[in-house]
């Protein structure tokens, strides 16, 4: 009998087109959009060659040292492991420089003289870097002069050579084993977390179909010689199966098609998915059992709360999760979507499993609590009102 009910509930869920759309198709589409929109996001942080111009004037032509300096920075900068040219320099007339700046073809232009002048249109990292580099020229000159003043002999002792010797003083080290974390993965983690939590719609459906005060079908069921909890658990189990299968499909799409990095601890990943779906379904069951409003109202409650939870977990703005963890840590422990997201993140990024266990442990506790409260509510077998 349990199997029979389970099988029928499975059919009911799978044939509910709008349910399947929102819990499976919509996340797949959203993942595709995320992938298309964010594929370049990490790259956009990287430095691209900065286009600048030097005004071609008499002072510039005269000063070979300055020319050398400019040339040096048009090459690879020291200590950079990659071939990054800092500047792409053009030497042009003042009018041309103005025109280039107006047309946004260069970030700024430098007029050599006493002092050196930099002309820009706006403030930003590129402009700041130009300034710092050209600051350096005046500063090195000043340093050389100070040293000569202090130790006149220095000139003979290789100061000039030293001046040209620009060394790198930083060494890149890794913290943890994960190199170069990709911030966009968080978007996909929240997306999975949201889909897990959409399992709430299954929970909603199952409870609605067994509570006589919520639907007519359920009244018929209540007149039948079957224990309600048996029907409910068969239904919730069917919901869990479908939800989990959907998450596997989504996960497969993310990992194999979109190549999102989840790390490779498959067992832990599956555990997180399972607990995520279970918490979602039990949450939906609780919402459905706890109030007698129409199904439309309950759906709205679920959508709004899932969206809000996903927002706080960083689905619309990746740094939101971190901000919440910094300033309202309690909220990030209450929010199941954030817990699911954070568990994926911990698997991806950390070497230890402490944080993963905390997250999944809390999810497990919430699932049990949601189930217990739901049970308390629906345990009652007669109604005051149908």
């Amino acid at each position, binding site marked *: *009998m349990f199997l*029979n*009910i389970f099988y*029928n509930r499975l*059919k*009911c*869920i799978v*044939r*509910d087109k709008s349910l399947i759309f929102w819990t499976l198709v919509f996340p797949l589409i959203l993942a595709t959009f995320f992938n298309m929109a964010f594929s370049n996001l990490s790259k956009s942080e990287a430095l691209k060659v900065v286009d600048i111009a030097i005004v071609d004037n008499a002072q510039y032509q005269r000063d070979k040292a300055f020319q050398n300096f400019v040339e040096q920075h048009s090459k690879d900068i020291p200590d950079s492991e990659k071939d990054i040219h800092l500047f792409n320099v053009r030497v042009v007339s003042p009018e041309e420089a103005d025109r280039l700046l107006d047309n946004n073809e260069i970030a700024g232009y430098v007029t050599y003289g006493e002092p050196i002048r930099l002309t820009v249109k706006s403030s930003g990292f590129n402009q700041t870097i130009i300034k710092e580099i050209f600051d350096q020229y005046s500063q090195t000159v000043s340093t050389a002069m100070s040293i000569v003043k202090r130790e006149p002999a220095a000139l003979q002792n290789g100061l000039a050579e030293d001046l040209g010797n620009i060394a790198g003083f930083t060494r890149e080290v890794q913290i943890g084993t994960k190199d170069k974390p990709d911030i966009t993965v968080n978007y996909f983690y929240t997306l999975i977390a949201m889909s897990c939590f959409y399992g709430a719609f299954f929970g909603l459906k199952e409870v609605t*179909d067994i509570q*006589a005060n919520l*639907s*007519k*079908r359920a*009244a*018929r*069921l*209540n*007149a*039948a*010689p*079957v*224990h309600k909890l048996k029907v409910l658990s068969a239904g919730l189990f069917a919901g869990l199966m479908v939800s989990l299968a959907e998450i596997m499909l989504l996960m497969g799409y993310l990992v194999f098609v979109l190549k999102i990095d989840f790390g490779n601890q498959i067992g832990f990943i599956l555990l997180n998915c399972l607990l995520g779906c279970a918490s979602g379904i039990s949450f939906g069951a609780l919402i459905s059992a706890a109030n007698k409003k129409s199904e439309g109202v309950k759906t709205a409650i679920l959508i709004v709360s899932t969206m809000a939870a996903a927002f706080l977990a960083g689905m619309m703005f990746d740094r939101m999760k971190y901000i919440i963890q910094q300033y309202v840590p309690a909220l990030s422990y209450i929010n199941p979507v954030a817990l699911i997201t954070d568990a994926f993140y911990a698997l991806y990024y950390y070497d230890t499993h402490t944080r993963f266990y905390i997250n999944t442990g809390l999810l497990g506790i919430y699932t049990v609590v949601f189930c217990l409260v739901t049970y308390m509510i629906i345990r009652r*077998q*007669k*109604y*005051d*009102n*149908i």
Partner: protein
Amino acid sequence: MIVGVKNLVKRYGDLVALDHLSFNVKEGEIFGLLGPNGSGKTTAINCILSLLNYDKGEIELFDKPMAPDAYDIKRDIGVIMQDVAVFDELTVYENIDYFCSLYVRDREKRRGLVEEALDFVGLKDFRKFYPKKLSGGLLRRLNIACGIAHKPRLIILDEPTVAVDPQSRNNILDGIKRLNEDGATIIYTSHYMEEVEQLCSRIVIMDKGRVIASGSKEELKGMIKLGEKISVEIFGLSSVHINQIKNLPNVSSVEYIDKTLSIKYNKGKNNLTTLLDFFREHDISFGRIYSELPTLNDVFLEITGKELRD
């Protein structure tokens, strides 16, 4: 006794929905629960099924007290609710099979029962259809099939013909008779007195949560003073004549509206002959004339002072 309801009281806040309701249903009868909308029929059914909490009273089914977990009782009941209660996601066959499976575990046995139920309501050709594709009448039939597939001893039908076309309605009523002939006891609620009159062997009339009369239709009609109604088309009738008619034997009231004379008689004999003699005597020419026996509506009207239909 199949159903025994004793002093059942159910309140919704200040509203008393059932007010010391008592009745019995005997094996093999088609028991009609008749009353206007809001008289408490559905509430009574829901209490009998232990779906609703009630404030006072006793309910026994098959001589055993009813409870939500009295599964041995529930096994012998079939319920057809006022609203269609089926799964949109399951086909006609799957719906019947699902509800039947809650009563009958054996798969083979169930297959036969579902086929029988499909045949019974005439939905054999629609087995693969989803409920959304069925017309209102066919949907009602599916609703009934879901309730009776497991061959219950007691079948409770709560207004199964509301908003159903006449063809489907007749199909449904015939079906109920056949179920009864096959041995099932039926409880049938309706606010259509014609249906109840046509179908039920025993009738309880309810109003405001109370039983106001019960018995077979003949017994019910015998309870009231009204014997018959005679209507006559007459073109001109003086008030003198009207007053004289009022004094004829057994006449309880006379109305003359729109060229139609309506006379209500208390129980008695030869009313029509006396009236015709009167017309002949006074040389009154008349058109069509017809006589009606009292209906359940008249019973209801006489007891409560209001029409059964709103």
